[in-house]
């Protein structure tokens, strides 16, 4: 279903109520919100897919569309069918159509109930979906602002009454025994950071990553950590480097424009071998782009983030659960290889609502410190020699700790001759060979002995899997690799695809950044097809399906 209208009409609140009511009934949801940067009066919609089975993508059709303003009748393409119900106020005019329009006195009901239009719509929808007035009331009591609770309850009641009087048939969504939790990707990243022993965060507000900072500012102090909002991204990345040098697992989070600024710090972290985790929630670029919309256009920048030969690890989780587990992985790898790890995330997962039964977590190993060494006469600790799997931080007993952005010897002391640079470059770059051979995050889905394969990235996974179900129905076998370790590229990728005849690369950007990244690994004989989209919205399964069944190359 979709609720459409203007920003300021409370569509986000309405979405949250419906999502939470579904979760209480044990149903799964997948949500996506389109919204503009202006806080009042811009076109916005929220899409909620509800199922008793797992859902990991947007739907191909909209069964219920609730319109709060005429301008909400946009971007509908072919999503409405003749069975779709369009709920609209009796006073609104709509263009020529062949939709099933349900006109209701929604505005009148809201003014009579002295309530807001969005909650009246929620009331009507809760009747239509069969969510139950009682369930919705419990949700309202939980999430309403105190002074609005009474009016919200009145509004929902009024909307519910309109539904009852409308004699429409209810969808009668089932109630499952165990209710679910409602999470956003930002919750998962923040919890992942806590679980990895992250104790310091510095960030600068930027859509769509701000909520990660806000959650950590609230939660980190509870586990003995600290999160600060600073003056810019340059400060943020250098501050987490300082904190990591002083012994704390540290992280920053940003979006593309901020990542552009942070590249100097990513190079510093790599050179000084001070582990940091940089979260990049991608948005539409280049430059300011569309700050609120979805795109996977930072693959190029994240995989090639700084000048010089920079050791770096780039991870891209593909499910909401992985937003948690791979955040933990990011910290473990950063410390293990003493380099920056960039966690490349998608706006759709970070900002929207999803349902989970529970969260399975394994214990992180945490930072391994250099301890029980005893220096004589205050030498500088050999931080950059083989024995440095453990990370030194000051104060060390009898040793000094030096970390440097300039080329250095094994102790970190400035040494700017060619031979040292050759040796230290091999040291820095050589560290990641292990990860190239044995990627920590690697998965092959579906039919492993097929002659066709899909490589996807991030949140494209869900839509690809759903499209593949349909393809399999027609007897076609296709392997699916949701690529999660973008740098260093796993050798396994080339090996797995060695005998594949046709390869589809699925990603959400204009230039095919994933395809370019992996092209050297693909068999020269294979036929390549790029399936990509960059209109700010996530793929729908049907769009991938179309790409898989239609002919034509890139």
């Amino acid at each position, binding site marked *: 279903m979709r609720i459409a209208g203007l920003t300021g009409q409370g569509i986000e609140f309405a979405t949250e109520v419906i999502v939470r009511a579904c979760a209480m009934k044990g149903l799964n949801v997948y949500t996506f919100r389109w919204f503009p940067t202006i806080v009042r009066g811009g076109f916005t919609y929220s899409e909620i897919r509800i199922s008793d089975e797992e859902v990991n993508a947007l739907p191909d059709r909209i069964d219920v569309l609730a319109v709060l303003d005429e301008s909400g009748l946009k971007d509908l393409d072919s999503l409405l069918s003749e069975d779709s119900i369009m709920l609209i106020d009796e006073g609104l005019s709509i263009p020529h159509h062949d939709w099933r329009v349900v006109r209701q006195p929604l505005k009148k009901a809201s003014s009579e109930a002295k309530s807001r239009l969005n909650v009246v719509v929620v009331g009507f929808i809760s009747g239509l979906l069969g969510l139950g007035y009682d369930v919705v009331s419990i949700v309202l009591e939980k999430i309403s602002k105190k002074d609005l609770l009474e009016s919200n309850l009145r509004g929902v009641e009024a909307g519910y009454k309109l539904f009852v009087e409308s004699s429409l048939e209810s969808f009668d969504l089932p109630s499952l025994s165990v209710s679910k*939790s409602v999470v956003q990707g930002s919750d998962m990243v923040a919890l992942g950071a806590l679980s990895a022993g992250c104790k310091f965060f510095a960030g600068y507000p930027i859509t769509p990553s701000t909520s990660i900072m806000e959650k950590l500012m609230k939660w980190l102090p509870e586990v003995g950590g600290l999160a600060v909002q*600073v003056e810019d991204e340059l400060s943020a990345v250098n501050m987490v480097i300082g904190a990591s040098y002083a012994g704390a697992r540290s992280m920053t989070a940003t979006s593309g424009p901020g990542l552009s600024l942070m590249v100097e710090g990513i190079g510093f972290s790599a050179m000084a071998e001070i582990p940091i985790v940089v979260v990049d929630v991608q948005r539409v670029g280049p430059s300011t782009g569309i700050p609120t919309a979805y795109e996977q256009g930072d693959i190029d920048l994240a995989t090639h983030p700084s000048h010089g030969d920079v050791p770096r690890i780039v991870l891209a989780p593909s499910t909401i659960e992985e937003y948690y587990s791979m955040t933990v992985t990011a910290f473990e790898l950063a410390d293990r290889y003493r380099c920056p790890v960039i966690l490349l995330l998608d706006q759709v997962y970070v900002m929207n609502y999803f349902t989970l039964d529970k969260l399975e977590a394994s214990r992180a190993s945490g930072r391994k*410190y250099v301890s029980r060494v005893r220096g004589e006469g205050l030498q500088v600790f050999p931080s950059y020699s083989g024995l440095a799997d453990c990370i030194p931080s000051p104060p060390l007993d009898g040793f000094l700790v030096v970390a440097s952005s300039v080329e250095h010897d094994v102790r970190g002391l400035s040494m700017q001759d060619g031979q040292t640079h050759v040796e230290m470059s091999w040291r820095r770059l050589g560290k990641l060979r292990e990860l190239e051979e044995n990627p920590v995050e690697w998965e092959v889905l579906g039919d492993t002995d097929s002659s066709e394969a899909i490589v996807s990235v991030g949140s494209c996974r869900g839509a690809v899997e759903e499209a593949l179900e349909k393809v399999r129905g027609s007897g076609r076998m296709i392997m699916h690799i949701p690529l999660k370790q973008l740098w260093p590229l796993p050798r396994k990728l080339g090996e797995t695809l060695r005998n594949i005849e046709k390869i589809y690369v699925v990603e959400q950007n204009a230039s095919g950044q994933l395809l370019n990244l992996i092209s050297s690994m693909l068999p020269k004989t294979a036929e390549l097809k790029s399936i990509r989209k960059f209109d700010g919205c996530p793929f729908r399964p049907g769009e991938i399906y179309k790409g898989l069944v239609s002919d034509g190359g890139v």
Partner: protein
Amino acid sequence: MDVFERAKPRWCPGCGDFSVYEALKNAFIELGLRPEEIVIVCGIGCATFIWSYINTNALKGIHGRVLPAATGVKLANPGLKVIGVSGDGDAYSIGGNHLVHTARRNVEITYIVVDNGVFGNTRGQPSPTTPIYSVVKNYPFRWPEKPVNPLLLALVSGATFVAQGFVGDVKKLKEYFKEAIIHRGFSFINILSVCPTFNPTRTVRELKEEIVYVEEFGAPLDNVRDAVDLVLSIQGEGKNPVGVIYKKLEPTYNELLKATGKLDPSINYSRISEIAERELGLKMLIKD
């Protein structure tokens, strides 16, 4: 050789950085500090080479980012004495923004800016403290920009310790350093320095003639308006105030954040589970 000597300092003959090196090293010694408890955070520029010569912990960072990196160190482990060292390019040009914000946060670090009015490391370009109408290298006209006023900038940004030193008076410089290092808050010292190689018209002798010691005027003051007035009145006469101009005790950033101990690396899963349960109604199953 004392415990704070790592290597023989190498700067051009007559460089002001030698005085800063001597004064800082001796300040550490006289305060009874141990090298293990000090972190020198450096940016880019000739003065910042000091990390190679003074034997302490060191974080040699990138251009202009001394203060964010130093803040990170102090927040993660407030037990460390954190000393930032920059030149005028590092501090007032590329890193200018961070000075304002670190000062207003009152982070308990000492920030030393060696101000010689020129980009010496890149061989002589004008800096943010180069006086207007100066004759500068490879530029056919008089320099058209007014200089930054570091003391006023620090004062109005909320620094709780503002001083100006002079490389021609190492003894006093050392005393300012000592006072700055024990100050509980953001201590800022701009040092009037020289670059005989790339800014030869600015000499120690010439600077000395312009100096006015602010003790004579009852400094350090604890009122920003008085301190600003003092700086302006001395500068108005074409002179340079030297000494500790302003000092006041205010809560530090660490104190306000309640981050007064080293950040504990241990992971408390039951506390994290509580957060997940409370905030999200989410059950966490921790596997061993």
